[in-house]
């Protein structure tokens, strides 16, 4: 039984005409799989490699370089919350904000809440320094946060 559904495979194949070769579809394919399955397992890597006519090690080499992809040992939860820890956020309390939310959710950075709802992570500069401290929910940025507004935001995540 393959890990990648026909729908996922179709989405990956639809990227082929956009690039001069299939290898360039590696990142788009990883994003598609990761988004659908919240992880990229070794089986998924093998199936992506087959679609892209690559060796699985080539796909793994690329995937393991980038910060956002998670493996089958450590899939992300329903929502992913990233706290910026770089300089502008750090100067305005970003690190403490992350600590407060970790305590609230009973997790360490990188972990997922027991109910599988939220994965908490730190990120390097999210490019929203005018709104420091900021965080990202999945790929949407929220700015000018404090303990209260961040807690409210997180409570409302489903």
């Amino acid at each position, binding site marked *: 039984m393959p890990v990648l559904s026909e729908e996922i495979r179709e989405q990956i194949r639809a990227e082929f005409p956009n690039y001069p070769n299939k290898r360039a579809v590696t990142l788009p394919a990883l994003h598609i799989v990761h988004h659908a399955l919240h992880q990229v397992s070794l089986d998924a890597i093998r199936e992506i490699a087959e679609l892209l006519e690559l060796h699985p090690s080539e796909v793994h080499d690329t995937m393991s370089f980038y*910060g956002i992809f998670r493996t089958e040992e450590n899939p992300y939860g329903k929502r992913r919350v990233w706290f910026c820890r770089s300089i502008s956020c750090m100067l305005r309390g970003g690190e403490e904000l992350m*600590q407060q939310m970790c305590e609230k959710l009973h997790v360490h950075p990188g972990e997922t809440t027991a109910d599988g709802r939220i994965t908490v992570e730190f990120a390097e*500069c999210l490019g929203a320094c005018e709104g420091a401290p900021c965080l990202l929910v999945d790929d949407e940025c929220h700015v000018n946060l404090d303990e209260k507004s961040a807690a409210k935001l997180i409570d409302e995540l489903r």
Partner: protein
Amino acid sequence: MPQFEPVLLARIHKADSTSLEGYRADGGYRAYQKALGMAPADVTKMVVDSGLRGRGGAGFPCGLKWTFLPKDHPGPIYLAVNADESEPGTFNNRILMEQDPHQLIEGIAIACHAIKSEKAFLYIRYEYGRSYRTLFKAVQECYAAGLLGKNIQGSGVNLDIQLHRGAGAYICGEETGLIESLEGKRAWPRIKPPFPAIEGLFRKPTIVNNVETLCCVTHILDRGVDWFKSMGVKPDPNNPRDPGSYGPKLYCISGHVNRPCCVELPMGVTARELIDVHGGGVWKGRKAKAVVPGGISMGFLSADELDTPLDFAGPGKVGCLGLGTAAVVVVDDQTSMVDVLFNCCRFFAHESCGQCTPCREGTSWMRKILDRIRSGHGKLEDLDLLLEVAGSMGIIPGTTICGLSDGAAWPVKNAIKKFRPEFEDYIREGRRSITPAQELMATH
């Protein structure tokens, strides 16, 4: 002095700033029409004559870069748009993409006409989800309106724009790292030469340009070379290699100021004016202790260097690496430089791609040494050790492939040179400033 009228940010507060209709109502795509009526070489000449220098960090003359492409190449030639804005403190490209995507698309289209490219890849960092969705919609609007695709406006010119999302790696902002990443590989920068203009993406001639640079191209075509050269800083007559710093520039102001913001001003504004006038002053009535002039890779200005003009040449005159991304980060006088430098070192240790040993090991050791100092176990000799490590990594000493390493070393060099007594006092007093929040991230 008359009030400066923004051009790049002129539309960002409009209700329909992102729509094609709104953009056209403000004269949008007029510059592209004009460019399509010109020979590609003439468009390039305009950009060369304008003196436009790349806004992404290195400040390389944009038009000159375009002239490095091989003549009469059968193609394909690619444009890779660098929208991997990741330098800490920098957010101007994000504002341009989120608030006025067509300004960028027009710049891309003009550049592609000039360099005879029929395909542009826009490499956008994953974290910029809103920018991605805004651009995606804007590109679709352009296809529907015949501004992208085949035989654009009956000109015989073809152009496709492909959006490509990154995956969380700072090094993808280095132009050959970006190219490797686009090809589906780990983003390890390439040894140059060959430069991308000769052999770049998919081994074809490629131009890599930053978002703000391309937005400037739109206005250079629309308003002309003289307009662009009417602002900024002229070349230093005593330095024949200085091309000057012309045009408007987006400055980001963040950290300990009352009103963090992005502001458009003629090149060459001082750090002091940015902080006091545009950033509303240092917060809580405090004074600035240190100021990052252009993203943390550029190092620090001390409090008595705030009158430094932020043009391409200014920061270098006071020992910084350069103008970088013109992202100003203010550190107030209640903040420890040891903590600030640790934050910088942690960033680079996390973001070194690992290809070159001096960078991989150097960034990691600098972080560890700062960590030791902040645990109260630092020794005075650690400061010279940090300088020794910092002095032996980078393109400048000639030990690495790309400039990430120079950028990692610079805040260390500047901090210890300009704030040494503070570091010495910290170590002598056996102070400790690691916070519980940082312990949560201790091994990263």
